[in-house]
């Protein structure tokens, strides 16, 4: 059922894939995007928390009538979440997914499945999972 019965998985040379230039490129490029994003959002968020904690009066100052600095800063957090979410979706579709497919190309589609993206990992369930 969930576990395909093929034992071909034991034959996948994981280290070879890991060493391959395609895989290295995927990892490097994704890291180059994800790491700065993670540092940025954590910093922007923790800065918000720190200012709330240690400078509440500044956050309570009015920008325009009842709208305070705190609410403006909070709204940037929403913009950040939506922005980074959509950006990551785009980057992944255009850049990371095709790279990932190339990195595992050698192991895809040997069962003649039409190559729906990621529908093709069939080749590689490791034997340890096929416990039944």
């Amino acid at each position, binding site marked *: 059922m969930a576990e395909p019965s093929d034992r071909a998985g034991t034959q996948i040379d994981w280290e070879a894939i890991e060493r391959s230039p395609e895989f290295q490129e995927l990892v490097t490029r994704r890291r180059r995007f994800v790491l700065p*994003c993670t540092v940025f959002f954590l910093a922007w968020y923790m800065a*918000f928390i720190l200012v709330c904690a240690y400078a509440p009066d500044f956050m309570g100052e009015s920008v*325009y009538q*009842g709208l305070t600095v705190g609410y403006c800063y909070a709204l940037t957090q*929403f913009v950040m979440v939506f922005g980074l*979410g959509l950006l990551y979706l785009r980057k992944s579709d255009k850049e990371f997914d095709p790279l990932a497919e190339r990195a595992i190309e050698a192991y895809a589609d040997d069962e003649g499945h039409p190559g729906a993206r990621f529908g093709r990992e069939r080749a590689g369930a490791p034997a340890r999972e096929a416990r*039944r």
Partner: protein
Amino acid sequence: MSVLAAVNVEAVVIFSIVLSITLLITYWASKRMTGTSTFYAAGRQITGFQNGLAISGDYLSAASFLGIAGLIYLYGFDGFLYSIGFLVAFLTVMFLLAERMRNAGKYTIADVLSFRLNERPARTAAALGTLSVVAFYLIAQMVGAGVLIQALVGIDFTLAVILTGGFMLCYVIFGGMLATTWVQIIKAVLLMTGIIVMSLFVLERVGFNPIELFNRAEANTTPESTFSLGPGTYLDTPLDTVSLGLALVLGTAGLPHILMRFFTVPNARAARSSVVWAMCLIGCFYLLTTFIGFGARVVLGEAGVEAAGTGGNLAAPNLATALGGGEGTFGGDLFLAVIAGVAFATILAVVAGLVLSASSAVAHDIWSSIIRKGQDSEKEEVWVARVAAATIGIIAIVIAVIGGSGLNVSFMVGLAFAIAASANFPALLLALTWRRFNTTGAVCGVVLGVVSAIGLIIVSPGVWPGADSETGSPIGWTLANPGIVSIPLGFLGCIVGTLVSSERGAERSFHELFVRSETGLGAEKALPGH
């Protein structure tokens, strides 16, 4: 029947409709129950958008809906600060865990850890982390359910807890993840619709000008009010605020019932899009809770504080009554009943997800992998999972009934987030990204995370409310939120445990885990066809 004397008839009708729909779904799902993959992961056939809705349904508890709206009503900005943490947390999930979990895991957090680590200790540690988080979160939700249903519908606390627990068990035991998913999806739709309609009613009062809502909310305070458009009224200890903020942003990435949802989609791509859908829904939801909280401040004013109860939990329902035309009018009663029905569906969806993740830890990790060493049949595992769900559910019902409405709900939810961030998150993240990480590190990290989070809560001022050494914290500990200490300790445990031990194999199998988690090669597949 004195117990049922004050029952709200409209609410009972709406509750019955919600329950009938969910029971029909459970019946439908039970007919499709084919094995562990359906029971734990809905056959991995849930689409990205559906899973986004289900994640929102799994995540937004009654504490988010009624609790945050109530805090905003009472304290203004500080209530909103919670929402920001709850939302930004999904970036942590998206960037660091969602796709990797889907690619490398099967049903539980422990699957990911045990992939490259020594199976029995790694699974035991992960199950400990999962069960600790679920225990506190589940009891908090059950108590919250009892209190709210008692207040909203007029049935007795004990009966309300038993009813909630009964339906929760029904969904999980007969319908597994498939029924739970659809209950969560329906709940998300109900909750979003409810909060949008209510926000429109509120905005209509101020001519659809949000700034005017801010102005009137601030104007509608008295010198005794705690309400403020700036921070510091509810969260008045700076270091505690930072500690809370840290636990919120990292805790979600360690919540087993949320992470489990990523196993229900067909591939990493769907896992990714489901996080973004969830962010959009949850983000909109939290923006709108501000309107509800401010609306309550404008409409109910300072005079409504007492009626809003502990933590302002009843501010939103009371606002609904007022917006519908006031107490005793048909419109008022109906609006209240609708909001009560939404709150009830909210609670049911969350507790079902929690019980399911706990039962998977017991059946899949402890029973099937550790006790039976993988020799059991799939049928046996599903059967054990059902027994585990029933046992966990009954224990939670009993504790909630005995502990009664006096148990502090938000305190326990905070504890659950702190444990998740301190125990589950460091071990998972390092297992997926650090080549050198090993079993000793994982066990040390999880144990240290769980023990330090619970230990610091036990000595915290929340448990010892007094000011002096007689009634105050026995070791003079002043932080209510343990995160700022326990999260670094969780990471430290992982790192030191790894460095002081040496283990063959962990580094070798990292190649496989690394390639799998980054590319999806060899990932678990969806059941064929619908």
